[in-house]
C-alpha cells in the first residue's frame, strides 16, 4: 500500500481542507445535499469558497482545493451509498434466513457486495473478490482431496481384512455388512 502524506504534521494545526472534511462528516444529510447541489450548480467556485468561509470559517484559497474536496466528497457519497445497501442486504438476509449464523450472513453480504463492485467496475474490490473466490475454491479442492485420500485408505483397509477371513464364513458375512457400511460412509 502506498504511503499517503497527511495534510499536516502531528501537533500542527489542520489544513483548511482537513477542517472542511471534518465539518462534512458532522453535517446532517440535508446540509450535505445543499452543498452537493451548490458544487454542481452554475455558481462560480469563487462564490462557493466565499460561502464556505462565511458559514464555516474555512478559507479555501484556491479552486484546486475545492476540486480536491469535491472529488473526495464524491468518493464518500459512493461509500455511503454502498454502506446503505450493505446494511439493507444484511437486514434482509437476517429476516429471510433466521437460521443462518452471523458468519453465513456476513459471507453472503460481502459476496453480494463483491459482485456489485465487479459490475460497477471497482477493480480494487473486484480483485479482492477474485482472490476470495480462488481461496474458497482451493479450500474446497483440499477438502475433496482429503476425502478422496480417506476413502482410498478405508477401502484398502477393508480389502486387506477380506484376505485374512477368507476361510471363515461367519466373519465373511460380517465383512460384507461392514463393506456395505464403508461404501455408504465414503460415498
Amino acid at each position: 500500500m502506498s504511503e499517503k502524506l497527511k495534510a499536516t504534521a502531528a501537533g500542527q494545526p489542520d489544513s483548511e481542507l482537513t477542517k472542511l472534511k471534518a465539518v462534512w462528516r458532522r453535517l446532517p444529510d440535508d446540509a450535505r445535499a445543499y452543498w452537493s447541489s451548490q458544487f454542481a450548480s452554475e455558481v462560480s467556485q469563487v462564490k462557493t469558497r466565499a460561502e464556505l468561509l462565511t458559514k464555516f470559517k474555512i478559507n479555501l484559497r484556491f479552486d484546486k482545493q475545492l476540486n480536491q474536496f469535491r472529488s473526495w466528497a464524491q468518493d464518500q457519497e459512493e461509500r455511503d451509498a454502498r454502506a446503505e445497501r450493505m446494511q439493507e442486504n444484511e437486514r434482509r438476509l437476517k429476516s429471510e434466513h433466521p437460521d443462518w449464523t452471523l458468519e453465513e450472513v456476513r459471507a453472503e453480504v460481502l459476496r453480494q457486495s463483491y459482485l456489485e463492485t465487479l459490475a460497477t467496475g471497482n477493480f480494487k474490490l473486484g480483485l479482492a473478490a477474485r482472490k476470495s473466490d480462488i481461496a474458497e475454491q482451493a479450500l474446497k479442492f483440499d477438502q475433496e482431496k482429503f476425502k478422496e485420500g480417506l476413502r482410498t485408505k478405508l477401502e484398502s483397509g477393508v480389502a486387506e481384512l477380506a484376505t485374512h477371513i477368507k476361510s471363515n464364513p461367519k466373519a465373511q458375512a460380517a465383512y460384507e455388512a461392514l463393506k456395505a457400511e464403508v461404501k455408504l460412509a465414503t460415498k
Partner: protein
Amino acid sequence: MTTRELQICKRILEILHDLDGGQANSLDIHAEIGGINFCSSGEFDAALALLDRKKFVVGIKSKFKGVMWNISDAGEAARLEMR
C-alpha cells in the same frame, strides 16, 4: 494484543487511513481487508471493538448506514508504530 489481532487491526487502520479523512461502514471495511477469507466476522468485530476502546477509530451512528468509522489522530500514530 495477539499477533493475529495486531495484523487485523493494522489492516483496518490502513484502510481507514486510505480514506483520507473519509468514513466507512464496518461491512465495507471487512470487505476491503479481504473479507471472510482473511478473518471471520467475530475476529473482525473484536478487532474493531478493540480499536474503538483504544480511541484509534471514531464511530458515528447513522440511521440507514449503520456505524460509520473513521481513523483518529491517535489511530494515525498507532498505524505508523505498527509498521
